[in-house]
C-alpha cells in the first residue's frame, strides 16, 4: 500500500513509533474489524479504530439511538436520537476518517448469520450488553478460528479479555450464560458513562496490537477494574479442557440462540 502525503501526515504519530512504523500502519490500514454493538463499548472502539485508519470497520446493531444512550455512547450525538445506531456511527466514522470503509448491518447477530458475517473480518470486538450474544460471539469466533475481544461493564466495574484460537475462551471462564435476569444489564443497574470509554479504549488497543503484532495480548488473562478504587487486576485464566466449545470433547457443535432475558428494557 502506498500512502499519500496526507496519510503519512495523518498517521505520523503511529509511524513515528518504532514498533509500528509505516509497515505497522499498513497492517492497520489493511485490517478488517467487526464491532458487535454500537453502544457504550462499540462507540469508543469504533472512533479509535477509525482514527487509527483501520481499513474496514463492520458494525452490527439493530437498535436506534435513545436519549439515555448519549451519557456514554459517545459516537452518537443529540440530533441522532431515533436514528439507526449503525447509520449514526457510520456518519461519524466517515467524518473522522474518510479512509475507512464502513460496512453496516442493521440487524442482530444470531446463530444463523454469525459465521457468515464474522468470516469476513480479521478481528471481532464484543461490545454487547447481553450474555446470549456474548456466548454466541465466543462460540462463532472459536469455530471460525477468529480472534476477538470480550468486554463487559456494569456500574463502576469493567472486565475484558482477548481470545485467540487456542487460548482460554470466554466459555472456558464463564461456562454458560447465567439464567435470564440473574445478572442485570447496564439498562437495569446503571453504569458510570466514562468507564465505557476506559474499557472500550483497552479493547481498541488490543485490536491495534493484534493488527500490528506489537506487544503481548490480553490472552489467558482477564483484566478487571473498579473505578471507585481505580484498582486494576489481571487474573490468569487457563484454557479449560472441559470447555463445551474449545475443550477436548466439545459438546457444542452448532451455534445456538440462547433465550434472551424476558424483561428487555430499552437501553
Amino acid at each position, binding site marked *: 500500500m502506498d500512502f499519500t502525503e496526507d496519510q503519512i501526515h495523518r498517521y505520523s504519530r503511529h509511524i513515528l513509533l518504532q514498533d509500528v512504523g509505516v509497515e505497522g500502519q499498513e497492517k492497520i490500514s489493511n485490517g478488517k474489524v467487526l464491532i458487535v454493538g454500537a453502544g457504550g463499548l462499540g462507540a469508543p472502539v469504533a472512533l479509535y479504530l477509525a482514527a487509527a485508519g483501520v481499513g474496514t470497520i463492520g458494525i452490527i446493531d439493530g*437498535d436506534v439511538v435513545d436519549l439515555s444512550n448519549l451519557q456514554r455512547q459517545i459516537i452518537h450525538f443529540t440530533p441522532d436520537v431515533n436514528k439507526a445506531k449503525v447509520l449514526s456511527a457510520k456518519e461519524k466514522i466517515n467524518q473522522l476518517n474518510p479512509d475507512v470503509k464502513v460496512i453496516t448491518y442493521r440487524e442482530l*447477530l444470531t446463530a444463523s448469520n454469525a459465521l457468515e458475517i464474522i468470516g469476513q473480518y480479521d478481528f471481532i470486538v464484543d461490545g454487547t450488553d447481553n450474555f446470549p450474544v456474548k456466548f454466541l460471539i465466543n462460540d462463532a469466533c472459536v469455530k471460525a478460528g477468529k480472534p476477538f475481544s470480550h468486554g463487559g461493564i456494569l456500574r463502576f*466495574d469493567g472486565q475484558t479479555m482477548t481470545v485467540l484460537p487456542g487460548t482460554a475462551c470466554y466459555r472456558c471462564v464463564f461456562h454458560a450464560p447465567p439464567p435470564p435476569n440473574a445478572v*442485570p*444489564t447496564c439498562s437495569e443497574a446503571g453504569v458510570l458513562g466514562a468507564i465505557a470509554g476506559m474499557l472500550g479504549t483497552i479493547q481498541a488497543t488490543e485490536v491495534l496490537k493484534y493488527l500490528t503484532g506489537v506487544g503481548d495480548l490480553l490472552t489467558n488473562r482477564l483484566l478487571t477494574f473498579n473505578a471507585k478504587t481505580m484498582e486494576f487486576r489481571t487474573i490468569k485464566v487457563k484454557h*479449560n479442557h472441559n470447555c463445551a466449545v474449545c475443550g477436548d470433547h466439545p459438546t457444542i457443535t452448532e451455534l445456538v440462540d440462547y433465550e434472551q432475558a424476558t424483561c428487555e428494557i430499552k*437501553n
Partner: protein
Amino acid sequence: MGIFQVNGKNQEIETPVSLVEVMKINNVTQPEMVSIQVNGEFVSRDDFGTVQINQGDEVDFLYFMGGGSRC
C-alpha cells in the same frame, strides 16, 4: 487463624473454611453470577458446596459482566 487471598486481597479467618462460607463473607449471594477459581483452577459449579479453602489459597470470584449495546 489462616490467611488466604480473595481477588488479590488477604482475608483472615479460621481455616480450613468452606468455599460457601467464603462466598457468604464476600457477599456472593447468587452463585449463578460468578465463576470461581481456587489457585488458578476453575471450581465446577457442582463442587461449590464441597470445596474447602486452606491457608495460603488464592480464591478469585469472576463476575458476569454485560455492558455495551443491546444487540
